């Protein structure tokens, strides 16, 4: 195993409500949703209609451009409803689950066709741009991060540490497509995943976003123009491993439910696509005053009470909405209940304190004012975040290329957005830049 790669830049956000390491509930939800929304590059075509019976692993949605790529049902049952938004945009397919779960059996002799037909191909994300992986290309590597560094994220040693068999099987399968790289948490004395074989192990140590696969790739094998890599979450890897062990799709995962507004934060074992209403015990009667996020507080999606657990997420964060006005907030010398990474507040005096953060913006939107260094000190990548963001704002393709748009996804710059005193939506700017690149490069 290689030496620890120590990342000095970054920021751990001390938010309260970290989940206790126990599974408080294990469920098959009454309904599950298959959501094509949020998968960059997928043009969904519906393959089922209301009333159809589906098995776990049956195709539900296909990609219009490449019909081989499909999304499958995570549980068996009956299609209850097709939810559409404006202009009949397909938002979700709701499946009423059976008491008895039945699975489609897949032939796993050919790795690629097994992944495609089981729908697990969509677990792979292709960089640059974070799009659906293209089955016709061979990437220079498949990268998996075996630890999360995001605030309140699931402890993967706890959730998947006992599934080494499935993970190993997954690596063996994927290694037939491209070399697999797994990044371990270097701060642990012994990671359970250090025993994985058939892949290159890397150790990363540092603050968030050290656990982001994009940051890791930029230190292992940065993505240049014309190069392609695939990434995969550890949960996705485990699901692929289970497919090759049993021939069935099994997407069950332990989900960390936490956040300052979460009641008794802990883990829940469930399926992706679980409606947020199933997590009612965690927010109680305060559903109107909280924001329910599928993912972490920095780059998760606010799905609301009627939303679903994201396809790739193993974390739900519940935080209070910050509509309160704070009298003379900015001018008070001490604001011990607010966290700031800046020295002009005094959070640095209380390194162990955890803060009840809410969604308040803490200021008004302004143009970029602070120097590059103010942002790059929380970004452990060899890029200039402000120059990149400004290139995206200007829509200057050439500059975006030069400043490293191939290497980043919005989530990688989340810490920059967090510390920004100008309150700019940097992740949104990067996302729009990536959309522009996709359009121009198509």
């Amino acid at each position, binding site marked *: 195993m290689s030496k620890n790669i120590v990342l000095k830049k970054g920021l751990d956000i001390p938010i309260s409500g970290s989940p206790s390491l126990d599974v408080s509930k294990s469920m098959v939800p009454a309904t599950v949703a298959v959501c094509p929304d949020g998968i960059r590059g997928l043009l969904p075509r519906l393959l089922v209609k209301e009333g159809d019976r589906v098995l776990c692993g049956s195709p539900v949605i296909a990609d219009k451009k490449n019909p081989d790529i499909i999304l499958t049902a995570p549980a068996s049952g009956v299609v209850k409803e097709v939810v559409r938004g404006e202009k009949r945009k397909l938002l979700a397919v709701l499946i009423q689950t059976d008491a008895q779960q039945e699975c489609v059996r897949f032939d796993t002799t050919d790795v690629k066709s097994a992944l495609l037909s089981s729908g697990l191909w969509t677990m792979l994300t292709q960089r640059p741009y974070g799009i659906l992986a293209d089955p016709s290309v061979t990437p220079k590597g498949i990268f998996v991060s075996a630890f999360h560094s995001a605030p309140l994220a699931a402890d993967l040693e706890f959730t998947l540490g006992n599934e080494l068999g499935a993970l190993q099987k997954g690596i063996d399968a994927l290694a037939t497509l491209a070399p697999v790289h797994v990044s371990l948490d270097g701060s642990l004395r012994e990671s359970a995943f250090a025993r994985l074989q058939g892949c290159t192990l890397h150790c990363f140590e540092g603050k968030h976003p050290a656990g982001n696969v994009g940051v890791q790739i930029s230190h292992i094998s940065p993505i240049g123009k014309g190069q392609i890599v695939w990434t995969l979450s550890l949960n996705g890897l485990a699901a692929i491993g289970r497919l090759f062990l049993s021939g069935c799709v099994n997407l069950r995962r332990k989900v960390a439910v936490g956040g300052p507004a979460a009641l008794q934060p802990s883990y829940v074992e469930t399926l992706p696509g679980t409606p947020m209403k199933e997590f009612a015990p965690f927010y109680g009667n305060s559903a109107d005053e909280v924001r329910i996020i599928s993912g972490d507080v920095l*780059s998760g999606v606010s799905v609301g009470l009627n939303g679903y657990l994201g396809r790739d997420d193993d974390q739900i964060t519940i935080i209070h909405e910050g509509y309160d006005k704070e009298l003379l907030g900015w001018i008070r010398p001490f604001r011990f209940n607010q966290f700031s990474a800046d020295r002009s507040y005094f959070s640095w005096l209380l390194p162990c304190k955890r803060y009840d953060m809410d969604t308040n913006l803490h200021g008004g939107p302004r143009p970029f*004012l*602070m120097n*590059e260094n103010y942002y790059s000190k929380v970004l452990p990548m060899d890029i200039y975040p*402000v120059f990149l963001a400004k290139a995206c704002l200007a829509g200057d393709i050439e500059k975006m290329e030069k400043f490293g748009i191939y290497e980043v996804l919005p989530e990688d710059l989340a810490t920059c957005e967090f510390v920004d*005193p100008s309150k700019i939506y*940097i992740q949104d700017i990067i996302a729009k830049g990536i959309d522009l690149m996709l359009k121009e490069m198509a």
Partner: protein
Amino acid sequence: MNKIFEKGGKLYWLHSTVDAFETFLHVPGTVTLKGSHVRDAIDLKRLLILVVIAAAPAALFGMWNVGYQHGLAMGQTGVHILEYFWFGFLKVLPLYLVSYIVGLGIEFASSQIRGEEVSEGYLVSGFFIPLIVPVDIPLWMLALAVAFAVIFGKEVFGGTGMNIWNPALLTRAFLFFSYPNYMSGSDCWIAFKKGETAVADAFTGATPLTLDGPAQYGTGFWDLFIGTVPGSVGETSVIAILLGACLLLWTGIASWKIMCGSIAGALLVGWIGNIAGITDIPFYMQLLYGGFAFGTVFMATDPVTSCQTETGKWIYGVLIGMLCITVRLFNPGYAEGMMLAILLMNTFAPLIDHCVTSVHISRRFKKLNAA
């Protein structure tokens, strides 16, 4: 906010102004819409008020010094802290009123025209402007210069954060080139009441920079370090400026690289001047004269107009220090080089950044191709 100030309301044209006062009183209850759901408690108001606090010692000392210099010119002796301070306070207060009323007035109006929130940038510029002008400058000149700097130095580029030159220095440059009689020489640095003239024998009101060497006139190291010499209101006291520098460096608002670079550059050229026999002033004394300290700590480090990149900050700082002393050594007609050095380097900061990022990009490409 009251409905009449919202879009479609009768007083919508006051929207930005009301919003500015409202957000001054409390942190607004707006929530994040996308991206990062939680945000750092820091905002620009907090950062910029810290710059004002950092400049406060220089301002307070400057006010006392205005009174002290007047006392010297009147032949008084002694320190008279409160009496001198009060004299200086009454002299400087009108400068502040003009600076803020004119500058913020334009800022509020242009924010309203653009439909944006009022930015806090002028809070700092407006605090600096009275500190870098002679205390007896006519108020209408100051008003004109402020209007020029805010409109043509800042608003035409899109407001705070978009400007190329430091607005406070642009104000000073406007005054310097338009009304040189009021900005240099030996008469402008002392505040006089109506009808007064200097009575003390052998008193000179020139700043030490315009004189031939320091020893001759009793402006030794400690006078300059403490700041009991004539000069622009806030620039004289190096020790008060150093107090501010400590706060700026601790909070990280100002770049230590720019400050150190500027000092190194000044020392280098000052030393060359010494060994080449161009000047008798010891090279380390250059750091104490004129606006060098104030410019290095408060003006050169302005994050908007300085270099963005860390390497660039070194280059930018060193060049400011070198240019400042070069102007001093080779241009006896205009002894104060700091303003021009900073404005010139403001102009070239994007070019320096361009060169630094180009080197970075080509290094990255080499790395990518090797990988």
